[in-house]
């Protein structure tokens, strides 16, 4: 949660969100298999890989339990007023579509790179 919150919002996770996340991941659908634990440890040691793994799981393995944990973390942060500015509805300039197209390409490349990481776990 700590690294995910920083990765997603650029802010540190607050105490309430951390404690809620610890409680939420007790659910059997989010208990990690051995390979997923090793992948998580790798991500904690190498925070540069979070974006790659996030993209790869979304693209290729959306049922992965780490992905489920990311969705839980996302839901917890989305319902905290501390991160309201990040999640609030926004108006974008028309040109933002081009920014998103670039990000879409970046996402695909990240996903492919992330898939290489997943091969090791």
């Amino acid at each position: 949660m700590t690294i995910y919150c920083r990765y997603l919002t650029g802010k540190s996770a607050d105490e309430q969100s951390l404690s809620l996340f610890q409680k939420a991941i007790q659910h059997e659908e989010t208990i990690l298999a051995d390979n997923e634990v090793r992948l998580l440890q790798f991500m904690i040691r190498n925070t540069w890989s979070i974006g790659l793994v996030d993209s790869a799981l979304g693209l290729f393995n959306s049922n992965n339990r780490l992905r489920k944990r990311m969705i839980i973390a996302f839901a917890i942060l989305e319902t905290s007023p501390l991160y309201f500015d990040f999640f609030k509805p926004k108006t974008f300039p028309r040109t933002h579509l081009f920014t998103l197209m670039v990000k879409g390409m970046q996402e695909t490349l990240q996903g492919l790179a992330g898939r290489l990481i997943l091969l090791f776990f």
Partner: protein
Amino acid sequence: MAIVDYIVIGSGCTGAMAAQTLIEKGVQVLMLDGGMTDTNYDGLIPDKDYLSIKQQEAKQYEYFIGKNFEGIPFGKVKTGEHLTPTRKFMLRKVMDWMPLISDTFSPLESLALGGLGNGWGLGCCMFSHAELKMAGLDAARMNTAYEVVAKRIGISGDKDDTAKYTAGNLSQLMPSIKMDSTGINLYQNYQRKKSSLNKDGFFMGRPSLALLTEPKNNRKAYQYKDLDFYCDQDKSAYRPAFTIEDLKHKSNFSYKGGLMVIKFEEGADSIKIECRYLNNNEPVFFECRKLLIAASCLSTARIVLRSYNAYDTRLPIISNPYSYLPSLQPYLLGRDSDKNKVGFAQLSLFYDPGFNNEYVAMSSIYSYRSLMAFHILKETPMGTKHGFEFLQYMMPAFTIAGLFHPEHGGSTKYLQLKKDPAQVTGDALGVHYMLTDGEADKIARNEQKFTQALRKLNCFVLKKMNPGQGSGIHYAGTLPFASTNEKFTLHPNGKLGNSRNIFVADGSGFTYLPAKGLTFSLMANAHNVALSTLQG
């Protein structure tokens, strides 16, 4: 044990309407009900709008994702999984007391005070003359009953292009709710392309909703807080529990919750009803002169089959096929112009290929926000970070079209009560529901037609979602109307075949299900059945 005049089973939309009719006529009524209420979240949501809560409330997670995270679907999504945590009380004890076995049918049932009415989308449609006839209902009596029910619950809507499909022609109608940008943009596009769409059999207009836009008794007008999926703070949205609460103040009404009705036994002068307490499974008995069952058609079938010891007997069932079409209006991309969104349906789009209001398919159009981003993000084939950036841009343009199709019964749609000693009731309901190839083709063609019509309105369907049979939460036809007085049928006045004083006030008798919202017609029929019980 005292014998009461009337017992009504169930407090949902039909039970509430039937009971109100009987109480107004001055008879003594006892209501037996599951009676589950929200004990976890009641009163937790502050009196603020959605965005203010999001910005200010530290404990918002409790009602938005649930104290036990029940608002986050972890595994495979089933019918009812999308209910918000504050509405999940509708499902309490259902698995234990209403076991259902099926690979092909996934319904929603409730033991709550107010039943499935707690989650009703409020859509009110009057069936056309042809639809009423096919459903086995008397048109003149139903049209009178629609007016009675509308006066009780309060309906808002418009007399527009769709008035003949909705309840727009009622004599008493409050103005429609204001639309947000999702509805406004789509409706403007419809006005521009109306003639072409009408030629294809498509008509768009404002839905009639059981939602107040003007105060009525102790209920306020709709406040545009965008919390429609979470609470009924101002009581602008009609819920049958409001009727029950009002009836509790009447001296001739009594209510017993926490009960599961198991079966009835009709004697010469009275009907004996066996119930169990939901908390300890202890039996308890009641007796009445006339019985009105309004338990919703699946539960009514359980009670009737059990009472006649008719295990393994097949009864028919009808359920509207349902799909939804997540769509985008590109004009709205990246434009967040609404402080307050509306959670209820803002527009209805009807497809009437015969131009005769007979086999009409219906779509309700919604915007999306207060159900939050993580639900959609979960389904997005992208990482959560970039996925959310895309979603934030797309969210104002998101338009959900919920699509209902008309439905007949058939030999591949049936239910049976089977003995099952492992269950607390000693049995379980088995349901088999398969569409024929012809029916499935027709639905696919309708979906295609709606996709094309939405495209004409500059609204582009992203995906077609079929949550499976039963997910439409419209069920009927288990004890079809017939004038033969046979077992497992209902006389058109609601009397159970082969009985003297047992009536069914829910949709069990309907022999056809139009695609239009069913609930208003169920309530009108319940009122008529209650009136019938008073005769003779």
